[in-house]
């Protein structure tokens, strides 16, 4: 009697599946963003204070943790570049994302848990920038009033080529890679754009205006890091390879099991029927 049960239960499962998934979909426009003119009366960078005690504690930290490679006066060595005049954004980015200090040299410094607290990081930034002027400052990101549509266009043009359009990152050649954008803070995304760490190109104010910078960061923050997955599980946002595995393992796999369930019922029926 398996067949008699199979069809109604299949119909029920199908109907339930359609119903549940339809009503489970989030309402359109769940992620709204206000379109507005971000009047840039606010300063575009965050100023770095150079008070004496902060510089001094920054120097102590630098000597202890950075000078082995970068030299005691941040002048660089055979192993590491000169840091004088690189600007606050560069130092803040590399230290803030945990890429520095680097325990051992690799093709690309990996992101990890930052070694320093925020105040320690500010001290190091303060010390290194006190050694020489120049370089981009830490961007003052203003997400309010940013235009995510402009951000999407700029992201598609400038960032998707390495970080992928979904921002999950991917491998580049010879051990280099474009990292995932998911763990980056808004300030770190802006710093990376302004300074071009590693293989990444540098986008100065002539390429990307402060307002456009805010637009891209807003898009990354609101839509890359929190994608609108109204279709269900995002499958890592790596595209058709993951989808193909799901199609085979979940789709074909379950259908094969179901075909086994529904196929060859006769011998069981027969064993029941033998007594009847």
């Amino acid at each position, binding site marked *: 009697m398996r067949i008699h049960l199979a069809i109604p239960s299949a119909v029920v499962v199908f109907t339930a599946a359609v119903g549940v998934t339809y009503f489970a*979909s989030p309402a359109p*426009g769940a992620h*709204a963003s206000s379109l507005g003119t971000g009047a840039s009366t606010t300063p575009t960078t965050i100023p770095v204070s150079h008070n004496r005690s902060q510089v001094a504690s920054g120097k102590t930290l630098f000597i202890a943790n950075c000078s082995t490679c970068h030299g005691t006066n941040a002048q660089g060595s055979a192993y590491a570049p000169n840091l004088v005049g690189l600007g606050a954004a560069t130092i803040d980015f590399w230290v803030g994302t945990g890429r520095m200090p680097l325990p051992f040299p690799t093709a690309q410094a990996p992101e990890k848990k930052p070694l320093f607290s925020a105040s320690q990081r500010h001290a190091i930034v303060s010390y290194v920038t006190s050694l020489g002027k120049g370089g981009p400052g830490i961007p003052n990101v203003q997400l309010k009033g940013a235009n995510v549509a402009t951000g*999407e266009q700029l992201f598609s043009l400038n960032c998707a*080529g390495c970080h992928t359009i979904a921002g999950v990152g991917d491998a580049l050649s010879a051990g280099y890679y474009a990292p995932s954008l998911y763990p980056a803070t808004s300030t770190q995304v802006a710093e990376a754009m302004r300074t071009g760490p590693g293989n990444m190109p540098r986008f100065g104010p002539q390429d990307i205006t402060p307002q456009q910078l805010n637009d891209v960061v807003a898009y990354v923050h609101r839509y890359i890091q929190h994608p609108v997955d109204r*279709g269900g*599980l995002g499958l890592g946002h790596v595209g058709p390879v993951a*989808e193909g595995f799901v199609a*085979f393992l979940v789709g074909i796999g379950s259908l094969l099991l179901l075909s*086994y369930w529904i196929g060859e019922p006769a011998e069981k029926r027969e064993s029941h029927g033998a007594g009847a």
Partner: protein
Amino acid sequence: MITQKIDERVNWLDDRLGVQKWARKSLNKIFPDHWSFMIGEIALYSFAILILTGIFLTFFYSPSTAQVIYHGPYKPLDGQKMSAAYESSVALSFTVRAGLLMRQMHHWAADVFIGAIVVHMCRIFFTGAFRRPRELNWMIGVMMLFLSIANGFLGYSLPDDLVSGTGIRIAFSIVLSIPVVGSYLAFFLFDGNYPGTQIIPRFFILHVLLLPAAIAALIGAHLAIMWHQKHTQFRGNGATERNVVGSVLWPTYAFKTLGFFFLTTAVLALLAGFFQINPIWQYGPYVPYHVSYAVQPDWYMGWLDGALRIMPAWEITAFHHMVPNVFFPAVLFPGLTFMLFYFWPFIEDHFTKESVTDHNLLDLPRDNPVRTAIGWGVLTFYFLLFAASATDVIANTFSISLNLVLWSFRFMVVIVPPIAGWIAYRVAKEMQTWQDAGSRKRATIIVRSADGAYLTEEAEPRPGDRAHLLPPAEVPEESLAPAVAAHVGGAGPETVSPGQVGVTGAALGGAGRPASGGGVKRAKRDHRPSGLGGMLDSLRPRRPRD
């Protein structure tokens, strides 16, 4: 009375067309019960779902590259210029009721459809079901595989998002790479240089009309030929070259297959509801000078993408002209692939000369180790190419150099398939010798005689013993319903093993039916465990042994 009226009408029709005889014969058609015969139905029902959901999508999709401005709930696209095709696809996903569910169901159905074709083809290949008289149906199947892959690519391209646009760009380059005619052909297809404005409407009409019609026609031919030639079957259970053992179409098989249609639909609906596929709004509109990294085609095109990726940068010249490098992995290689698949029955027959007789009984993979080895090697080769389409994903996931991954695949596609084939050959050879491993054998009693000699005696068979099956013997003709006996082409006697129960007219729905209503011919079978173990176990031979 109404029934009387209906009877009159039916009789009227029957007098003129003889439908009753035909219907009776058709309804009594025997279908094998083995679960692996349902794989083709996964493909068939996925195709039905593709048609149904596809019709829904055409109500809302606009096949045009005309530039429009999007205004809708997805803010990152709000105010952006894009093609009407992309705009309507996004609107379909956000504002049309159940639109996204239908779109995702369509896409998952496509992935499962082609996947089921491949798995079905594997079953046909490894069991030798393509041999005489079924060479034509194999060739039709290969044609359907080709058309399905092509149609999948066309459908994938229609939303005109950033990722699929890159795919069309690659397709244009592939057409360009064909020697002599490439540039003419590409400009003919795209109505000028890339991207043009014609490609989306042209892909649309190919995708929704020409290729589905061709596939539907081939499905018709496929099923008609199968109907005419009848099913193949595994050995054992009284099956011979001249009969078909299984369930009758009506009512047993019809309800079974209808239930399976609902189950397939349910699985596709669940996939569409819980697993996001191709979220085009996250990809943005296609702009020819924008590109996203990590772009792959859908899985069924993956082997082509992988071949393109691992092709070394050789510059090959012929007749003093350089043949574009892309031509070899993207045109020549798939061409040879489909030619090999298409003509495989004749290639095999060239060596085995098996086509002197019909083959309605299936081989098990172990029965023909050479074929199994070739098939397994070929499968491994194409799986490696598929994996090579994800070189970047592999490198990124496992934090290894992309170059290392690429070079590994270049060597692996050459080295691994022969090794895999050889292993398959050895396993097949081994399995020929331990068919009954894991099951209880009929016990043998060793007796010591008075003068010290040892003799063996076979014990009485116990329930669950595997090796007590006896070869099939004749069953008297009169014990079978005439309609059923006619099914075997009129010549072959029905067979069941002695000591086993041959059942006629019993089982589901058959109890109250007259004997002429077609019986379920069935021989009792040794017990098999259920679950996954049983599924694998059911691949074991059920060949009577002596």
